[in-house]
């Protein structure tokens, strides 16, 4: 509005007489002022988040680019890093420890590499989630945006990272005799469900990490335990064949193992449905919904407090 400029010396310090005697709350009420920084309702929050989608996308790809911008090889590292990772794990688990018992080499190598990449996707989403708020307090205290943008953005960054890894993965799968087929289309729903699960988990970790930044020190150990328990480098069924069946069941129905197995099933020719637990797609969907929605609501509940640190 252009006609709002008043000269310098309008009655500034003394409140106007019309509203004298009103309490601040009543005055705010009268002029329709709202509490600054109040938490919006859940649906309003979703709407705000949707209107910030371009920021979320730009922020995640900016983070991804910034990651290797000082390296001479630049973005080549996006592909080289997962490749080197796969090589190291193959050296130790494939050649030295012989963890691939019960599988041929043509199945085991893609099996191992898929497991590592897919688990890394969840692992790095969790680790980025822990620091999403606590590591970006400057941003949270400077600008207004739905705070869920941060954990979502970091998970999206990890998804883009995974897509680079998929280039390596596809090359390895083809090199070991698994050729593209219609079954590869199952990659899309499987990755999508895992992404939703990861975002939910990242939001839970973001809220916890904003209160307790120490989680950043603790989580690597939790994640490593989870990795070894999820059969990243061995087949749970084969390894636990002589143990009570319920142990293997628990391990196989844990979300990390479910998503890993689905993607292996989609990608690897020699890895058939007999390796999947029953109702695997339902389980994958359930994990995604429970964590996706639950994590979102849990994060939103503390929305107005993230600036405090």
């Amino acid at each position, binding site marked *: *509005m*252009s*006609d*709002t*400029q*008043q000269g*310098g*010396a*309008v*009655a*500034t*310090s003394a*409140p*106007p007489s*019309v*509203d004298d005697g009103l*309490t*601040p*709350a009543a*005055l*705010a009420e009268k*002029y*329709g*002022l*709202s*509490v*600054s*920084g*109040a938490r919006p309702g859940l649906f309003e929050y979703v709407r705000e988040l949707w209107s*910030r989608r*371009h*920021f979320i996308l*730009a*922020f995640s790809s*900016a*983070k991804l*680019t*910034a990651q290797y*911008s*000082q390296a001479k090889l630049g973005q080549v590292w996006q592909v080289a890093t997962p490749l080197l990772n796969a090589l190291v794990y193959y050296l130790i688990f494939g050649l030295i420890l012989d963890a691939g018992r019960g599988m041929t080499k043509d199945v085991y190598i893609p099996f191992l590499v898929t497991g590592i990449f897919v688990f890394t996707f969840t692992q790095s989403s969790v680790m980025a989630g822990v620091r999403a708020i606590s590591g*970006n307090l*400057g*941003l*949270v*205290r*400077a*600008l*207004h*945006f739905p705070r869920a943008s941060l954990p979502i953005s970091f998970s999206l960054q990890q998804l883009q990272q995974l897509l680079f890894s998929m280039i390596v993965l596809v090359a390895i799968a083809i090199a070991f005799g698994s050729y593209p087929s219609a079954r590869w289309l199952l990659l899309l729903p499987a990755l999508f469900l895992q992404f939703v699960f990861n975002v939910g988990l990242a939001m839970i970790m973001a809220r916890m990490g904003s209160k307790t*930044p120490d989680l950043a020190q603790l989580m690597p150990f939790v994640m490593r335990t989870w990795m070894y328990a999820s059969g990243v480098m061995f087949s749970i069924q084969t390894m636990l064949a002589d143990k009570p069946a319920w142990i293997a069941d628990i391990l196989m129905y844990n979300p990390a193992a479910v998503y890993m197995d689905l993607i292996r099933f989609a990608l690897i020719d020699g890895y058939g449905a007999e390796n999947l637990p029953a109702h695997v797609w339902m389980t994958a969907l359930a994990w995604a919904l429970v964590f996706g929605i639950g994590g979102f609501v849990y994060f939103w509940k503390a929305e*107005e*407090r993230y*600036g*405090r*640190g």
Partner: protein
Amino acid sequence: MADTDTNIKRSDVPTVICDDVHIVYRVNTGGGGKGSATAALSRIVGRGKAEVSRGVRKVHAVRGVTFTAYRGEAIGLIGSNGSGKSTLLRAVAGLLPTESGKVYTDGQPSLLGVNAALMNDLTGERNVILGGLAMGMSREEVRSRYDGIVDFSGINEKGDFISLPMRTYSSGMGARLRFAIAAAKNHDVLLIDEALATGDRKFQIRSEERIRELRKEAGTVFLVSHSNKSIRDTCDRVLWLEKGQLLMDGPTDEVLRAYERETAR
């Protein structure tokens, strides 16, 4: 709203109301006073005073501030370092939650500044886009203002610097681009935290001009500054904060005179 209420003058319309605002920071000190690991461990094991023993210290930065700002006002915030000026500004913007008391605002006040959203490893070009989106502009808005931002910053006056990463800029150039991005958006309630003096003399003049423009468009302006001159030039009302408390609230001349008397001693 008030527009229908014809017997009320424009300037009688409140835009920001602070009602007994208290703000407390909780600082993780990484184990409290003594830094050694054993000291930290003994504090965890021994049951000391609950919060102190966990290495959390409370800093009571703003203590019971109450004021009402009206449309059309430009309000200066003065006080020594650490008196709670910036903290109060963040609470008005809704970025810091209050411990007790409430801040009521008309619309969404915003701080002038996007520094926190920018990334030094990215090109100036991408930072302009990222910063614009972070401030809540739409993609189309960013696109239409892009050239204006780059021209205003004057980054390209010495060659094609906008396509280089921001870490290669001199500190002055970086500050100019940051200001140009931040000042590209219009705000209802504008909060400025000592953002005025950046860059060389030529750019300072340009940025002061831009601030005046933003002021005209904004309903209410808050300015935190240690320069009494820029407060005098800009503001018609001044709040003087000391140790988190409102020491004085009145017309610029009156408050500044008292402040100058106090600081001269």
